[in-house]
């Protein structure tokens, strides 16, 4: 925030230019232009149906899975357009990884869940994998709870633990950008606090984009906040500015709880 180095000196990681997204004839996003910086947590807030999740899924091309999806404009990752026909979405998803709203532990052991991503492209050495598992689980604040039962099924973990496992799984890929889609929506306050703690620590090494329905959470951990409404980006600014002196009356209405 204000103590951070001035915004001007930061290099943008992702530049979104005039992005429009359609599903069939329905337009979900209209003319979004936004820069996402390195080493920042950008929170996206807005009422249900405002296009937050669609926006997030556009950043790693997960929307490609629905046949009616169509986009216009550009999404540049380190200056390269990820929607260029020659761009490989599978490689993209290794650099820009996602944690979903509901914890999705894959039906395998805790250990296998974490190494799933890294082993997809060839099998690294066992010792290296062990190290990776420990490092990722520690970074997600889960290691101490599971270190004695790495080989048991991940489906037996609690919801909060599963969500941290999902985070660890993404970290094991060593991505550059982490997308989180309401990662704490189904979690208790203690699990939520642990995830938030992990995210703030991770900011040093990653670019983090967080969709959240919890304005307090956005205020607690983000550097900047973007407010979406009905498929449009209404306002983007530092967390303090958005929550104390919003420029747009619609933002003011939302953050003060008058609607949404």
């Amino acid at each position: 925030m204000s103590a951070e180095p001035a915004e001007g000196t930061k290099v943008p990681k992702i530049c979104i230019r005039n992005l429009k997204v359609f599903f069939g004839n329905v337009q979900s996003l209209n003319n979004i232009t936004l820069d996402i910086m390195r080493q920042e947590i950008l929170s996206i807030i807005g009422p249900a149906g405002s296009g937050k999740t669609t926006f997030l899924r556009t950043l790693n091309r997960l929307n490609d899975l629905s046949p009616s999806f169509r986009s216009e404009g550009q999404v540049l990752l380190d200056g390269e357009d990820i929607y260029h026909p020659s761009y490989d979405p599978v490689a993209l998803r290794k650099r820009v990884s996602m944690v979903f709203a509901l914890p999705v532990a894959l039906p395998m052991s805790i250990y296998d869940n974490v190494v799933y991503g890294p082993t997809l492209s060839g099998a690294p050495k066992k010792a290296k994998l062990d190290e990776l598992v420990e490092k990722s689980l520690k970074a997600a604040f889960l290691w101490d709870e599971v270190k004695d039962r790495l080989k048991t099924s991940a489906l037996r973990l609690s919801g909060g633990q599963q969500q941290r496992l999902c985070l660890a799984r993404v970290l094991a890929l060593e991505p550059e950008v982490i997308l989180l889609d309401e990662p704490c929506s189904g979690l208790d306050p203690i699990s939520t606090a642990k995830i938030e703690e992990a995210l703030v620590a991770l900011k040093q090494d990653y670019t983090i984009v967080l969709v959240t329905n919890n304005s307090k959470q956005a205020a607690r951990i983000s550097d900047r906040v973007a407010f979406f409404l009905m498929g449009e980006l209404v306002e983007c600014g530092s967390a303090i500015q958005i929550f104390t002196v919003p420029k747009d009356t619609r933002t003011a209405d939302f953050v003060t709880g008058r609607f949404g």
Partner: protein
Amino acid sequence: MSQKSETVVYYVLQFIALSAMGSLLLIALFILKEGFPFILEEGPSKFLFSSTWEPAKEHFGIFPMLVGSVWVTFGALVVGGPLGVAGAIYLVEFTPKGLMRIIKPVIELLAGIPSVVYGFMGVAVLAPLIRTYIGGPGLSVLAASLILGIMILPTVMSISMDALNSVPPSYKEGSLALGATRWQTQYMVVLKAAKSGILASIILGMGRAIGETMAVIMVAGNAVKIPNSVLDSVRTLTANIALEMGYATGRHRQALFATGVVLFLVIMMLNSFAMWSLKERRKK
């Protein structure tokens, strides 16, 4: 008055529902009553593992037929299992919805073709092809396996498809979001999650293959001997009963019922195992 008719309807429906169970029970009892004493009298090991079947000389060993059933069933699984599972994966994951609307009913139609028609195709087309291009008499383990493999396809495919469809889409997304390709996702996550359902489909297909009679009689050749290769003629347990029941009397007739007991037990075991593994899946 209305209270009374309610009660009547209740009991009538209950009777009808229970009669299905009752007929299963009666069939089981009847076969056991006719066949089981014979097995005890002959000695279970002699009956199961002696390889001479000469009813005229009072030799009743069903081992060649047991081996025959195992060969043919195993062959049917080798043909129909991978084909059915791969087909199901293709249909569930890679087929556009429009094409799916055509392909699925066609597969279900496959189940409705009478088995004698399959047998007919085997005799008229498949057996001559095998005789000409591969060798042997044509009517063989290979022919029976191929025909049965096709016959179990609808069973294997439709149950596998249900299993694949019931894998939560979130697993797929989760895997793709970690940079997996579609095939890696299929292979490492979806198949793993649908494992028990797919296993059940194969076991039910196996039950169908063991129990099939008409098509097998027509294409397997029915010689009572242990086959040395897939090109040899073979007789299955079901064929043995169907071929000889018409003229069997006395101990011969009892021996055929005893063959039925063995068949009955094998199929019951397979079905129970399939049901158990389907239940395992639901628990997860």
